[in-house]
């Protein structure tokens, strides 16, 4: 009995030990897979997560661009792209696919008439997982496709940048490239980082259908929306001015033109219009078109990028320099026989070779006498007293307010000692041999209108970065000339406005200070001119500075006849629109 019990107990012990060893082995294996391997380089946990964890990028909505009145100039919409799955279709229809294919193509073509049946047939024959057949379909088409629930067809939503006002202010705004989603040119390009915002991410476990399980383990980094930007321009004013410019270019047979309007007191840009221009909603259609007299793409803002020889509008700089240094007064006289000879420079002639006899400095502007301007620059100012004022008026320097900007150029003894000659000085005095942009020239007149103080121009009024609002304050660039000199010069411009026409006939009810310019380009026929007019009104209390430039008008080549009527129309519209009180007779 005892032996049997002993043997039984021994067998129990053996079985027990076997069970313990196997359990121990199992535990060891569990430890190996669950703990050791999970944190090893092979990282099973990570592999498992990849199977059911989804990481989604959350795109940040691009900021909206508004005009000064709060109207939207640029916003975003979502439109669907349509994809088909040719490979999946083959799998779904292994036998007799033709009938199903024909039916599907007919249905798709009915909803998307812009995609031909032939194109769809070709696309379905491609050996690809997914093929794009239509892009940016309208909401009605999206709705129809969604309700039809066609097999092997799916919609992919995409955000598009749209410009509800069409081509209005296109060259100010720029556009967003559909392929890169980055802003290009204008405000879109200059403020791209601010407008784009920051994308976010969303990580969560997914179910069998790939839907994220938000009640499970998930983490979300919300996107940061782009900043909204408000511009200083007014859509209505911009529209009126663009229309006026387009009509003038067409009427005069010009190759193009630009209008720049700035606030005389603050330097805020009120309008910038260019011709030719483009529609940022269809920017791709304009890729081959040129502006700036065929030298640059039409996407560039001509007010900032089309440097030109300003012609006689530059004479105010010559006069300002001499007045400010007390070297002349508006009544200083000299004798103008129609030409002036220099020892060290070629002879300068008046534009019509006409002599005006004894004339005052005011009359030099009135007659737009090149002789008088060259005399002041060469004989009175000399280079050392002329060029500092050219630089002080910010000519030849970019303002960087709205994307790409041409700084302009002119030779001085300092920057071109080998090439500069007094001939440059005499010619620059009346706006030749110097390249400036329309904005730069407009700001010259702004400084004069503002009592000699040049303001820094700006086009962005405020930026709203997710509740944090930054407002642009008018900023003084520098005092260029004294208030007395500015007042004297304003008086001279009032006398010279529209070639001395009675003020009451220019912009009725308002006094106008302006100067015309008719510039030629060396090497090009003298009939191919840049006709311009720059000025401000009301002269007694300047509100707006307007610069109008027409490129190579065919009908009439002079500033007074080509640019003058356009300048007058715009001036009248501005006074009327902003209800500026008349000052005539005050």
């Amino acid at each position, binding site marked *: 009995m005892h032996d049997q019990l002993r043997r039984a107990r021994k067998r129990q012990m053996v079985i027990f030990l076997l069970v313990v060893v196997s359990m121990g082995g199992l535990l060891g294996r569990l430890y190996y897979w669950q703990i050791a391997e999970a944190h090893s380089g092979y990282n099973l946990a990570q592999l498992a997560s990849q199977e059911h964890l989804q990481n989604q990028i959350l795109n940040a909505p691009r900021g909206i661009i508004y005009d000064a009145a709060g*109207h*939207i*100039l640029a*916003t*975003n*919409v*979502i439109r669907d792209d349509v994809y088909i799955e040719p490979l999946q279709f083959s799998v779904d229809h292994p036998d007799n696919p033709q009938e199903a294919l024909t039916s599907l193509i007919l249905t798709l073509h009915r909803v998307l008439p812009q995609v031909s049946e032939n194109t769809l047939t070709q696309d379905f024959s491609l050996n690809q997982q997914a093929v794009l057949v239509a892009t940016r379909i309208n*909401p009605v088409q999206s709705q129809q496709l969604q309700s039809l629930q066609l097999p092997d067809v799916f919609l992919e*939503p995409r955000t598009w940048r*749209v410009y*509800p*006002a*069409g081509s*209005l202010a296109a060259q100010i705004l720029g556009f967003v490239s559909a392929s890169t989603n980055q802003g290009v040119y204008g405000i879109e390009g200059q403020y791209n980082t601010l407008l784009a915002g920051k994308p976010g991410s969303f990580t969560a476990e997914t*179910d069998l259908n790939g*839907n*994220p*399980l*938000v*009640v*499970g383990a998930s983490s979300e980094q919300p996107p940061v929306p782009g900043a909204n930007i408000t511009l200083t321009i007014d*859509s*209505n004013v*911009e*529209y*009126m001015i663009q229309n006026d410019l387009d009509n003038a270019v067409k009427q005069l047979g010009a190759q193009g033109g630009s209008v720049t309007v700035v606030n005389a007191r603050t330097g805020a840009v009120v309008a910038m219009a260019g011709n030719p221009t483009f529609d940022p909603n269809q920017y791709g259609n304009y890729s081959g078109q040129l502006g700036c007299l065929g030298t640059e793409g039409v996407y560039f803002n001509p007010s900032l990028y089309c440097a030109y020889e300003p012609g006689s509008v530059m004479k105010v700089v010559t006069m300002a320099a001499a007045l400010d240094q007390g070297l002349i007064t508006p009544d200083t006289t000299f004798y103008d026989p129609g030409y002036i000879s220099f020892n060290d420079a070629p002879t300068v002639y008046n534009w019509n070779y006409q002599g005006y006899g004894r004339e005052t400095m005011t009359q030099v502007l009135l007659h737009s006498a090149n002789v008088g301007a060259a005399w002041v620059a060469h004989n009175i100012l000399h280079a050392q007293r002329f060029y500092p004022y050219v630089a002080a008026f910010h000519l030849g320097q970019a303002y960087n307010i709205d994307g790409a900007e041409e700084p302009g150029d002119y030779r001085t003894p300092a920057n071109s000692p080998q090439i500069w000659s007094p001939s440059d000085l005499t010619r620059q005095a009346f706006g030749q041999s110097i390249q400036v942009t329309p904005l730069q020239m407009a700001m010259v007149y702004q400084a004069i209108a503002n009592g000699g103080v040049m303001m820094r121009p700006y086009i962005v009024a405020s930026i709203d970065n997710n509740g944090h609002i930054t407002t642009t304050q008018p900023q003084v660039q520098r005092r260029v000339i004294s208030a007395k000199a500015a007042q004297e010069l304003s008086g001279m411009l009032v006398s010279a406005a529209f070639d001395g026409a009675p003020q009451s006939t220019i912009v*009725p*009810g308002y006094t106008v200070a302006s100067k015309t310019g008719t510039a030629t380009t060396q090497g090009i026929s003298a009939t191919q001119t840049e006709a311009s007019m720059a000025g401000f009104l009301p002269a007694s209390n300047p509100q707006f500075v307007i610069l109008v430039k027409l490129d190579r008008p065919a009908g009439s080549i002079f500033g007074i006849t080509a640019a003058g009527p356009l300048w007058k129309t715009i001036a*009248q*519209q501005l*006074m*009327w629109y902003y209800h500026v009180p*008349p000052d*005539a*007779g005050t």
Partner: protein
Amino acid sequence: MNNLNRASGATRKTPLKPILAAKRRRQLYPFFFSMGPVPLTIISVLLIGLMAVLYLTQLGQAVSANQRIQEMRAEQAVLQRQNQDLVNTIANEQSPGYIATQAKKLGLAPGGPQNVQIIVVKNLEPIANTDQHIQP
């Protein structure tokens, strides 16, 4: 045991300690320790089953909530899209080009400052509007 004790002639008093001990055990230990293994197993299985049912119910509610959240997010996306479309439509219809086109269709012509005559009246003072009823 007692018969043996009686058979051997030993007299024993009933010990108090086991009764007290049993009472104390009942006070100190939960009742199911007095259960046998079979009832204990059955009750354990029932409890585990109950917990499983409760857990599955919660899980089902979580899945329904997840589905509802998904539907609401999809609805939100649709509404956001519609909102953006409406904003775009409003912006388009507020644009000066659109207004000018519509005005032209209605037979209106653009008025301009050329049609406005400015009359300068010296020392003109504005008349204060004190009539509340005719204010817009």
